[in-house]
């Protein structure tokens, strides 16, 4: 999971304009300074492009923290590789 968090951290830093932002799997989106629902959708679209994936809305609705997002990326990558 650590590698995937490293991969998505630049996306969060860009969107939240915070070059020093550090993320952990337990970091809740709602606890990030300035976070709103628009940021979540922006992150998802950036992640879709970065990892060549597509998220469904109910999946996005279930995301509450960084760990959720990373696990979903890994699950989709595994499914694509199978």
């Amino acid at each position: 999971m650590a590698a995937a968090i490293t991969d998505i951290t630049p996306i969060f830093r860009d969107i939240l304009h915070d070059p020093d932002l550090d993320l952990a799997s337990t970091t809740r989106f709602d606890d990030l300074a300035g976070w709103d629902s628009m940021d979540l959708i922006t992150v998802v679209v950036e992640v879709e492009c970065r990892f060549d994936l597509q998220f469904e809305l109910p999946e996005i609705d279930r995301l509450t923290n960084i760990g959720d997002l990373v696990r979903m990326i890994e699950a989709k990558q595994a499914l694509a590789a199978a």
Partner: protein
Amino acid sequence: MGFSGFPFLLGFLPLVLGGFALAGRRGEAWAKSWLIAASLVFYAAGAPTFLPLLLLSVGGNFWLLRRMHGSDTAARWATGGVVVNLAVLGWFKYLNAEPALGLSFVSFTQIGCLLHHAGGDTRAPRMRDYALYAAFFPALLAGPILNPRDMLPQIARTEGWRLSADNLAVGSGFFIIGLLKKTILADPLSTLVGPGFANPAALTFFPAWQAAMAYSLQLYFDFSGYTDMAIGLAWMVGLRFPDNFEQPYRAQSVIAYWQRWHMSLTRFLMTTVHAPLTLAILRWRKARRLPIDATAQATPAGFFSMIGMPIVVTMVLVALWHGATLPFLLFGLLHAGFLLVNHAWRTKHAPALPAVASIALTYICVLVGSVLFRSESVGQAVGLLGGMAGLHGIDPIRTDGRTAAALLWLFALYAIVWCAPTTRQWMLSGSTSRLVWRPSSPWAVAMGCAATLGVLAAGGTSEFLYFRF
């Protein structure tokens, strides 16, 4: 059959609870079946001609859910189901001579369930559970719009379908507070609201403000009172409904207001309209190598496409959901405008106003919107807003006893709105303060007195304002 009428309070409710206690002893299936039967009787008592429509709607949606499970084309079935639900709702809400009671809420609750199952990998609920989810009488006529993710697991459980003292105590507390909000706080305001909106062109500055303020308070106490009663009824039989209000008139921005007013509708539209539209727009921009970051969102074109368009579309739908009239449409567009200014303010990182000024400014925006919301024509709204702007003159405040009593009453209601805890905070805080409810003998006596007061006041009670939607 409204919750605050004698037939419900003295006939239907005691019968339902008594029957639930007996059915619960025979098991889960009996208890659920009893509640479904009671819900159908409740609906038939209010709108007998539309009972077949309710049955068809629940049956049709359940058939679709069963069809979708395990299907590769579940998303298509869900889309088709949403279209049919909206078409039926549109017909009976806008084109039929007599609107179908509660259909907006039943349809949205079921649309939410279809979309929840659109992936095809979620097992459909059992028929009895789905019927109770879609047609349970406390939420049948005016919500809250139930989220399948929260409600279906509660309904599917097999234990706990017994009438318990704990559930009855807390549930009746919610119900009694809701009853008082409706009968003691909201209904008397109609004597200020009705005459004010009947002849708005004659209103000078202070009477116009009084009429608008009285209506905003009436709408809040009426609808939040209804919601407290619905939450209480569900609680009595062991089900937990979501909140629909979180002190909305204390909001410090219009964005926050919509997160705290009619929360179940806001959540539903954010999930089903705003989020999908925003997602589609961002993907479209990304596919064309257009930026989607915060800097792009702050440019006029980026702001319009990524933030403005989803908000305008969502608020127009909010307006049309309430009714296909010009005042409702203007209400939706006005709130879209407020939200856009609010988002632009955020996007530009403009400094926040002091809390009191933010609350006051937000409330004035909401108040102006509520004038459009209450008005039957644009002329009526313009007349009242003109009075509030002083265009019809500014007479000194009258000093007679009636005016003083009305002002005192409004002052007391604002004190409740801005200072009192929510019903949930008051009932469930667990605080040891004597002012907070707890299951004790003194509070049982107090709630008994409050219930008596509420029932006595219910004699002349009016229908809930949100039943028309």
